[in-house]
C-alpha cells in the first residue's frame, strides 16, 4: 500500500544527492570517500544503482580499534593507549572489497511516513536513513535532523491552547 501523506512522507525531506560506493570498490576507497566528504555512512550499490549494503564510519574504525577492547568492562583505568595509538590496519585488510565489511542496509521506500522513518532510526540506532524507489534503486538519504525538523514543522498546524 502506498502512503500518500503530502509533506509527511520521507521523499519531501530527504537529500537527493547521495554519495555512494560501488560494490566492486575497496575498503581503502570507502575510507577515502568518508574522509573527503566527512560523512558517517556510505551506501554500497551494484552496477544498476541498487542498494546492496552500507558501510558505516564505525565499521571502518573497527579495523583500527582493537577487538579485544570489547572484552574489557571499561577502559577508564587506561590513561595512555601507548603503542595502540599507532596501530594501523594491515594493507591487505584495506585492499579487501567493501562487501567484506559492509552491513545489511536498513532502508525505507520514498513513500514512507516520517514518524515510521524516525521510529526505525531509533530502533536501529541510526543517524542516517537510506531511501529507495519502488524498484530498489537508491534515491536519497535523510538524517535524524532532516526527519525530525520535518515532523516538528507539522506542529505549526496545532492550534495553541491559549487564545
Amino acid at each position, binding site marked *: 500500500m502506498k502512503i500518500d501523506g503530502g509533506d509527511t512522507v520521507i521523499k519531501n525531506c530527504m537529500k537527493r544527492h547521495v554519495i555512494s560506493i560501488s560494490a566492486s570498490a575497496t575498503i581503502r576507497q570507502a575510507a577515502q570517500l568518508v574522509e573527503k566528504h566527512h560523512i558517517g555512512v556510505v551506501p554500497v550499490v551494484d552496477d544498476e544503482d541498487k542498494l546492496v549494503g552500507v558501510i558505516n564510519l564505525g565499521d571502518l574504525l573497527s579495523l583500527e580499534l582493537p577487538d579485544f577492547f570489547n572484552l574489557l*568492562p571499561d577502559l*577508564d*583505568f587506561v*590513561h*595512555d593507549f*601507548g*603503542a*595502540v595509538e599507532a596501530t594501523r590496519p594491515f594493507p591487505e585488510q584495506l585492499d579487501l572489497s567493501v562487501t567484506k565489511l559492509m552491513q545489511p542496509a536498513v532502508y525505507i521506500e520514498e513513500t514512507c511516513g516520517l514518524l515510521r522513518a524516525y521510529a526505525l532510526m531509533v530502533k536501529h540506532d541510526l543517524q542516517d536513513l537510506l531511501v529507495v524507489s519502488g524498484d530498489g534503486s537508491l534515491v536519497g538519504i535523510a538524517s535524524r535532523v532532516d526527519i525530525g525538523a520535518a515532523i516538528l514543522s507539522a506542529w505549526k498546524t496545532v492550534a495553541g491552547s491559549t487564545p
Partner: protein
Amino acid sequence: MIAQVITTLIFLTSLWLIFSEKLNRAIAGLLGAVLMVGFGKFMHFYDKSQAIAAVDFNTLGLLLGMMILVALLEPTGFFQYLAVWAGRLSRGRPIVLLALLGSVTTVISMFLDNVTTVVLIAPVTILICEILGINPTPYLMAEALLSDTGGVATLVGDPPNVLIASAAGFSFADFLTHALPIVAVAWIVALGLVRYLFRRELAIRPSNTEVVLKLNPRETLEDPKTAGKALVVLLGAILVFFMEEPLGIHPAFIALSAAAVALTWIRPDINGVLRRIEWSVLVFFAALFVIVGGLEASGVLSRFVNLIENAYIIPPALFGVVLLWFSAGLSAFVDNVPITIALIPVLQGLGANGVDIQPLWWALAFGTGFGGNGTIIGSTANIVVASISERTRTPITAKLWNKRGLPVMLATCTIASVLYLFLYPLFTR
C-alpha cells in the same frame, strides 16, 4: 555381555560428541545419561535410584559453593585489579611481566575456577601487551599453562582434584602435603620452560614502558566493598578447609556455608549471581556420574579392573607412573573430567580387590592435571585463551600450542613421575 557392549558404546559416543564438539558437553552428557538409564531399565541392570546414587553430591556441592563465591567476585573488578597491579609492578619488563601475570593467575586458580580467572585476566593481559607494543602470545599461553599446573596443588584448584578428594577421602591439607611440593617444582620448571620457548618474543624490550605506570588499578575496581566482603569470606573458607578433618566436615559443606555467608553479608541481586553460575558444568558432571554409574552397573568397569589386575605385575610405584602418563595422554585430547569420573570406580575396584590405591589417586591427580597442557583443546583454560587471542593480531594456533605447550606438559609429567618415584612412600600414607 550385550549390556556391557551397549553401555561402552553409549560412554564412548558421549565422549566422542564432547571431544568433537558436535554437541555442547552438557547436552552430550545429558543425552548419554538418559540413554544409559533408559537402556539400563530396559535390560534390568540400572535403574533410577542407582543413577541418583551414582551422582557425587559432595563434588557438585563443592563446585556450586565455589561458583557462587566466584560469581560474587567476578563483577567487582578484583581479577582485573590484580592483573593491572601486576602490569604496573613489572614496569614493562617482559620477563617480570610474564612471571607476575603467571603467578597472579596461578594463585587465584589454586582457590577459584581457573576458567573464570583466565576469562577475566586475559583481556587485561592483551591490553597491557598492546599498549607496550609487544606480542601477547607468551603471556596468554603462560597464564593457561601455569594456572593449569598450579591448580593441581589444591583440593579446589582443579575439578579432577575435587572428584579424587571426594572418592579417596583426601582433605585440603592432604593436597598441600602431597601435591603442593611436586606442583611447586613442576610450576617453576614450567615457568622457566615458557621463558625459554618464548625467548625471542621476550627479548624484545618495549620502548614505552612508562605507559604501564599510567594504568590505575584502583579504577578497575567497580565495587571494592563487595570485593572485600567476598575475599574475607573466601579466606575464611580456606582457613576452615584446613580444619576440615578435626571438625569432621566435608569441603562441600564448607564451600556452601561460605556461599551462604557471603550472600547474606553482601545481599546481591540473587538472579544476577545465579545467572553467572555455570550450570552447564554442574549438569555435565551430574550426567557423567550417571553415565559412569551405568558402565559400572553393567559390569564393564569390573572387567576393566580385572584386566588391569592381570597387568599388575610391575612394581606398584611404576604402575602409578604408568597411570600418570596414561591419564595425562588422555587428558591432552579429552576433557579430564570424564576421564577422572571413569577412572575413579576402576581404582575403587582395584582397591576392593586388595590393591593399595592410595598412591594411585595422586598419580591420577598429576596426570589429569598436567596432561591438559599438551594441546590447545587439553583444558578449558587453553581453549579460552586461544579464542580470546583470536581478537588480537597474533592468534594462538593448535600448531603453536604443540610447539610451546606440549613441551611444558612433557616436562611437568616427567618431573611429577621422577618425584613420584622418589617420594613414593609419602604417597602411600
